[in-house]
């Protein structure tokens, strides 16, 4: 009951803050929040692999890119293509990409996995760069119409209105993150954690390790694709450097490590820190990486695991001290 009340309060606070934000902050800051939500969804999808399956992917941009290009190309070539199907198809396309690569990816772990994903990510980058007729090369795909969100009989929401788009993004990202959170609580989510800890033992308990991993790659790819699709809808232009560049793969890894590896919500905190910090630096200089990179190094050196672990350590220490004090009082 206590937990229920706490969760309820957190939700109310979150909804109130998220709901009021665009009216308080103005358009520019609202757009930063859109970026943040999308990035958080992307980081959490990568975190399913990094923290839960225990494999480090250097090519997560591949799924993000597939999602973004799918949305852009659909809207560019099919006139009047509706919003939600575009979003879902982009996710499915990215999930499918995950499934297609999984026969190779499930066979390797550790460094080999990182290198293989890096290779596939770069392969996709080059493919999209060179396949000019379809992807527009460096210039990318631009000039597509962003469809409104039609709820038949109720309303037609204009996605070009930043406030409306902000709400749309927040709803999509919250739903996506909640689904992934739920997944980690299911039996399959438990098996995945088991694979991270000891895949041989999982095999000996009668689970199919490779099939299970393939499912998680598809799922992680799906949500990365949704995040990419939101990017495409938000920016109105999709280019190789924007969605497939190797930095697009590295950035969420930074968010996870800064926020808290091994936790579900850490990456969201990390995303918040990175995006807000970047926005603040951008006022003074273009070279945001100078500062975010420095922060990354500091976190790795002095806060290994990320800020969530720092926080949990402090809480544990506080509790221990309280316990000791109450014992002294008793004595």
């Amino acid at each position, binding site marked *: 009951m206590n937990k229920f009340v706490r969760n309820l309060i957190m939700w109310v606070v979150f909804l109130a803050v998220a709901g009021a934000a665009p009216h308080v902050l103005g358009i520019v800051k609202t757009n930063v929040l859109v970026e943040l939500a999308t990035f958080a969804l992307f980081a959490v999808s990568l975190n399913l692999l990094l923290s839960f399956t225990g494999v480090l992917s250097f090519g997560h941009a591949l799924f993000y890119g597939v999602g973004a290009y799918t949305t852009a190309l659909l809207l560019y070539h099919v006139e009047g293509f509706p919003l939600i199907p575009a979003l879902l198809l982009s996710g499915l396309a990215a999930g499918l990409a995950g499934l297609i690569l999984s026969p190779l990816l499930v066979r390797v772990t550790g460094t080999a996995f990182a290198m293989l994903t890096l290779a596939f990510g770069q392969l996709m980058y080059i493919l999209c760069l060179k396949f000019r007729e379809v992807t527009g090369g460096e210039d990318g795909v631009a000039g597509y119409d962003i469809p409104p969100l039609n709820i038949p009989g109720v309303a037609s929401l204009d996605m070009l209105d930043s406030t409306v788009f902000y709400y749309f993004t927040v709803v999509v990202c919250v739903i996506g993150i909640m689904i992934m959170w*739920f*997944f980690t*609580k*299911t*039996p*399959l*989510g*438990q*098996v995945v*954690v*088991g694979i*991270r*800890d*000891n895949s*041989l*033992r*999982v*095999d*000996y*308990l*009668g*689970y*199919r*390790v490779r*099939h*299970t991993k393939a*499912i998680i790659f598809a799922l992680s790819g799906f949500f990365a694709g949704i995040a990419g699709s939101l990017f495409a809808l938000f920016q109105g232009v999709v280019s190789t450097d924007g969605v497939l560049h190797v930095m697009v793969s590295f950035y969420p890894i930074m968010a996870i490590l800064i926020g808290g590896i091994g936790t579900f919500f850490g990456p969201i905190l990390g995303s918040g820190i990175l995006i807000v910090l970047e926005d603040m630096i951008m006022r003074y200089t273009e070279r945001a990486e100078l500062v975010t990179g420095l922060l990354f190094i500091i976190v790795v050196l002095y806060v290994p695991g990320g800020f969530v672990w720092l926080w949990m350590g402090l809480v544990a220490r506080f509790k221990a001290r309280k316990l000791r004090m109450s014992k002294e009082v008793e004595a």
Partner: protein
Amino acid sequence: MSTSILETKDLFYDYSGLQVLTGVNLQVEKGERHAIIGPNGAGKTTLFNVITGLYAPCRGKVIFKGQNVSGFKPHKLSRLGMGRSFQITSTFHNLTAFENIRMGVLSRMGIRFNMFQRVDKLKDVTRETDVVLRRINLHRESAVPANALSYGKHRALEVSLAMSTNPDLVMLDEPTAGMSRDETHSAVDLIRRLTEGKTMVIVEHDMDVVFSLADRITVLHHGKVLAVGAPNEIKNMQEVKDAYLGHGGV
């Protein structure tokens, strides 16, 4: 004493040239506690790994419940009803004792790809896991991560993880390795209790454990079966003494 649950026929295995198993014929009867012993380098662990599917045999057959299972992958063998434990403790070290056992219970109940229900809402899984933890006397440590358990308890968790899928045949690879005398004693009790009514194959160095647990013993030497028999017969066999002491040999 008629139906054999596990049989190996003329099993060969070599590590790129080094012949480790050179024609092993092993027979394990249903319901017995069978120990495999032998001096260092006799091929006990290799035999174990070939039977449990970690390696595929180079030649020969492994027959489990009348079915040729040579080269079957571990998960397939597990589903057929074979469980194993490891010499070097190999649990899910970051998960709690409860979560460890639950992994086996989920598999036993056939819940392997369910991603639409919360696992803590599956009441029968939770209940069954609690039963197992109580049986192995770990219910007070159920929320403790495996790597924070004491060595003896961690080993107990290791063995019961092998039992948690409720296998018909359980293969224990040196379950008491590295234990103190007291711990060994309670481990033997635990193993005896857990394997009641099941078939067990155990590889063990500690002869006290072997002689107090086993109904039948197979002695392995230089990758071949040297002798098979009841503990008393084995104890008095001259060949076995020679193999252990190093003179004679085969």
